[in-house]
């Protein structure tokens, strides 16, 4: 149980760039690593654990460790998609508790905006054999979830739009956010229908950039001159098409959330701030239900009328503007979810969106494709 074993997030850094035409991917990783270590007050020579998730080139973590000239005795390269950095922080906490490393560095970076990713399908991937010949984009797959949720629970496009509206209210205060204009539900509904029932403004941005987080042991955390953020619960899960029993209105967050809350010994009602992975508005709505912030099917009502807006609603979410408005580096933004939660817990979010006395926060990631197969990772963090 993580709470008893104790690991702390002591450093976090988000790359300010959203467009990096003149930087390499490894350079972005390295700048994020340097930023997070500087934030923690540690040096690269303190790092003895490294975690990354496949967004680096070449021999991946081996190339990155060599590029950064790290001397690590523990590394983890688990790639479960966009939720990987959240899982890595959990795995780092476990490795620290097991004595495998003392200072763990987690990085994520990419430049899909400057260099659009050329997807080369893996002909040995068993499910792609049945899917590649179909006409589909990833947003068509998320749209399947949205349509079924609307059918089963009466969820409306306007309710989904409230998720973008809340993100845009927060993004107006973030000078780095790609989309800083406050939008209304009417703006979302008037944006082009890209994959019915999803509109263009139901989708996240495509950005370059990245981020890094440093996790360490209690005695090191206490020696540093930074507010301490303790990881008290973590869960992960994977959900597929269940051999033909696909569930489009529920996600692996049911599992990752339940494990994380049980470990932390807290309830959704206790959470003061939530970072929720937001590749699309429907991604957020389904995750909120599955994490237990509302009953299954009530997500539309829960997000309506600004309930996710800081200072207005009951559950402030993605106060940096999130993937919907700020950034989604490497097409997988999991690390940015942790970084904004750390800012909130330290009281370092923008004053206009900072949650008062934010002592308990949740960060949640969704990796790959909700609707066909995806991963979830949930972290619960406490300000000590």
């Amino acid at each position, binding site marked *: 149980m993580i709470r008893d074993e104790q690991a702390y997030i002591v450093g976090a850094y988000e790359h300010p760039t959203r467009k990096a035409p003149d930087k390499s991917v490894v350079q972005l990783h390295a700048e994020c690593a340097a930023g997070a270590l500087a934030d923690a007050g540690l040096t690269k020579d303190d790092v003895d654990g490294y975690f990354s998730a496949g967004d680096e080139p070449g021999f991946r973590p081996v190339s990155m460790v060599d590029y950064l000239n790290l001397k690590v005795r523990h590394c983890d390269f688990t790639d479960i998609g966009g939720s990987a950095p959240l899982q890595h922080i959990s795995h780092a906490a476990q490795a620290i508790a097991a004595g495998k490393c003392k200072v763990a560095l987690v990085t994520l970076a990419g430049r899909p905006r400057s260099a659009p990713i050329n997807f080369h399908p893996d*002909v040995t991937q068993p499910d792609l054999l049945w899917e590649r010949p*179909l*006409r589909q*984009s990833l947003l*068509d797959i998320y749209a399947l979830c949205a*349509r079924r949720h609307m059918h089963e629970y009466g969820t409306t496009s306007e309710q989904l739009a409230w998720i973008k509206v809340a993100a845009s209210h927060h993004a107006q205060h973030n000078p780095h956010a790609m989309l800083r204009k406050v939008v209304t539900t009417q703006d979302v509904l008037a944006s082009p229908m890209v994959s*019915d029932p999803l509109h263009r403004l139901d989708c996240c941005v495509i950005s370059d950039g990245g981020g890094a987080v440093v996790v360490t042991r209690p005695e090191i955390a206490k020696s540093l001159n930074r507010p301490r953020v303790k990881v008290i619960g973590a869960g992960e899960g994977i959900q597929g098409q269940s051999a033909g029993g696909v569930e489009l209105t529920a996600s692996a967050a049911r599992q990752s959330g339940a494990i994380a809350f049980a470990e932390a010994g807290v309830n959704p009602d206790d959470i003061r701030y939530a970072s929720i992975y937001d590749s699309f508005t429907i991604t957020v709505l389904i995750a909120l239900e599955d994490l237990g912030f509302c009953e299954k099917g009530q997500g539309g009502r829960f997000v309506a009328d600004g309930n996710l807006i800081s200072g207005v609603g009951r559950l402030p979410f993605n106060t940096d503007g999130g993937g919907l408005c700020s950034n989604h580096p490497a097409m997988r933004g999991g690390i940015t979810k942790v970084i904004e939660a750390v800012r909130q817990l330290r009281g370092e979010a923008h004053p206009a969106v900072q949650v008062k006395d934010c002592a308990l926060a949740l960060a949640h990631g969704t990796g790959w494709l909700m609707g066909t197969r995806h991963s979830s990772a949930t972290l619960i963090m406490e300000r000590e």
Partner: protein
Amino acid sequence: MNGTDFIAHSPETKPFWDAAARGRFVLPRCRQCDRTHWYPRGICPHCLSKALDWQESPGEGEIHSFSVNRMGDQPYVLAYVALTKGPIMLTNIVDADPDTLSIGAKVKVVFKPSPEQAPVPLFVLR
């Protein structure tokens, strides 16, 4: 991307493609647990038995969910189809006006050969 590259790397599914080439839609059924599955594979994903039969299916079912991509010149429909007493499968609905589709609409399998694509099962309204 060539559909036959995928098929070549998936020898376990050869019976499906052989049947499809003759316009027949077959589903793997497990002799141990008596269940079908989708997508087809060489081992039963319900019980991990290798004792599979390829059973002809009428390929009838209903739309479980669908999306209409409107970004190109022609809209196209991605859908999950729930086969009658069978698995739910990802597919396209073809030869239909997207605006007339609804969840629950009755559909039937059709194979549309194409030089660049494996002849995957698609569905039309019935």
